[in-house]
């Protein structure tokens, strides 16, 4: 048996009762979580939930109003520089250096970490082939596609061989091919033992990458746990979706005492082993807008954060 399970190593990151207010507005309210070594931890939430504000506190962009934050066992308030030397950050906005080439972006960035030049060059070459940009090394950043830029941001964040990688919405705005390629690279990094903290509002991304996650809304944590557990606890295994339900069907569902959500034009019925129930319901449906599917994280997310638009 692995000895680490006997005496667990301290978490890479611990946040205690984090709070951030701007005047009377509280962007992050009493948020506590821990990221164990070697895990991928996700912060999910709709726009304006406080995800970005929370992680901006991690690298000193935003001083906390209250609470405490320890990374690598060090207090962020006093050890920011040594902490930043060991983390890699992919910010949400593209902030590659448009005045420099792909390779120069890597090289100059390595300089900010005081890496000696031969080591910087060696790592830059290796990382550029990791993200499949080796053949673009002498191009200007502005000549790259959106997906390539994201991959370069990722490669640049790895130049200091970080112990913690922080990703703020790493695949927002990418086409499916680019998104899958970024996921593949992140999975490879995970396999290599890297600890990752990521924010996202793509449930597919969170299910695929995260060992643990929390869902935030309006600055607070709604739930925290392992994705599959969250699905089981809050939604169940199956979902039956009925489009344009007739009143008779709604009566039937209410009579049976099922867990359901009525969205007007659509009704969602949650639970375990819904096969027989599905047969029953679909036979009652006059139209063919009735499906049985596995519950996903998206069902949990929408159930907990509601369905109204956020911006």
């Amino acid at each position, binding site marked *: 048996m692995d000895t680490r399970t006997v005496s667990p190593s301290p978490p890479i990151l611990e946040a205690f009762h984090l709070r951030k207010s701007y005047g009377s507005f509280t962007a992050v309210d009493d948020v506590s979580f821990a990221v164990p070594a070697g895990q991928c931890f996700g912060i999910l939430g709709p726009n304006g939930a406080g995800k970005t504000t929370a992680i901006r506190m991690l690298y000193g962009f935003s001083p906390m109003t209250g609470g405490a934050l320890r990374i690598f066992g060090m207090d962020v308030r006093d050890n920011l520089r040594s902490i930043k*030397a060991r983390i890699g950050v992919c910010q949400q906005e593209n902030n590659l250096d448009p005045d420099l080439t792909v390779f120069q972006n890597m090289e100059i960035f390595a300089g900010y970490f005081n890496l000696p030049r031969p080591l910087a060059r060696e790592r830059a070459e290796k990382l550029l082939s990791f993200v499949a940009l080796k053949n673009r090394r002498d191009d200007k950043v502005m000549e790259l596609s959106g997906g390539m830029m994201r991959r370069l941001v990722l490669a640049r964040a790895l130049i200091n061989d970080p112990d913690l990688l922080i990703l703020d919405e790493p695949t927002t705005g990418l086409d499916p091919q680019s998104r899958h390629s970024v996921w593949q690279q992140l999975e490879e990094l995970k396999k290599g033992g890297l600890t990752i903290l990521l924010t996202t509002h793509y449930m597919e991304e969170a299910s695929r990458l995260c060992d643990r996650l929390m869902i935030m809304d309006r600055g607070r944590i709604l739930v925290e746990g392992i994705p599959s557990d969250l699905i089981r606890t809050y939604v169940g295994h199956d979902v039956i979706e009925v489009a344009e339900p007739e009143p008779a069907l709604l009566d039937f569902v209410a009579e049976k005492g099922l867990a359901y959500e009525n969205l007007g034009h659509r009704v969602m019925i949650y639970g375990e082993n819904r096969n027989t129930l599905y047969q029953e319901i679909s036979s009652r449906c006059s139209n063919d807008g009735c499906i049985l599917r596995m519950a996903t994280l998206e069902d949990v997310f929408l159930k907990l954060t509601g369905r109204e638009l956020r911006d």
Partner: protein
Amino acid sequence: MRACNITRRFWKVWYRNLVVNRQNWKVSFLPPLLEPLFYLLAFGVGLSSLVGRIDYGGSQVTYVQFIAPALLAINIMNNAFFENTYSSYVRMYYQKTFDAMMATPLTLEEIITGEIFWGATKSFLATLIMLSVISLFGLVSYPSALLILPLSFLGGIAFGSLGMVFTGKVKTIDLFNLPIFLFITPMYLFSGTFFPLEALPSWARLLAYTLPLTHLVDMTRSLGAGRLDASLLWGLLYLSLFCAVFFPLAVAAMHKRLIA
């Protein structure tokens, strides 16, 4: 601002700007090369005959001799001020270069120091070129004129810090027009650059001596004429104090803007 937050690492920020500048150095070295030629042509050939000779430091100098060192001082002001306003603003706001840097072990203080030292470096390089051009016309005397080179760096830090304060404060890039209209243009005209300050009423002269360019012009003129006297020390003191006030103000303004 905490002084312990500034280590030698700020040179990495400076180096980033150097690398970028090396790629287009031919364009950026053209203005300091051509500008003095334009001025010397316009004023030397055009205006000089109208003005005649000017009384400076007890001796008569030609108008071109009078304005040549002032052109150097203006050049020092402009290079650092424009680098640390428009160019720094583009890096900060449009390119998010500072955001990327702040996620590395660099501190905000180091980023701002690197930017201001880069602005001063541009003043220095432009002075080097312009001084060479002016020297070809025999308008400054050596070896004292060589001291204009280190002076250009100090002046660059002073005007770069001033520019960086505005970069920390303006809402949009267009608003740099305001400090330029209110400070840079009046300094350009009324700092003893194109006419001796003695021509002004005494209150205006006193006002002129509160401006940094007035002191810088005094110093480049003294050094250019080979007059090493105590007034140089006053100028040095003024510029150093100016840096000591505006450099921390620049860091504070950027801190307020970027870390929230």
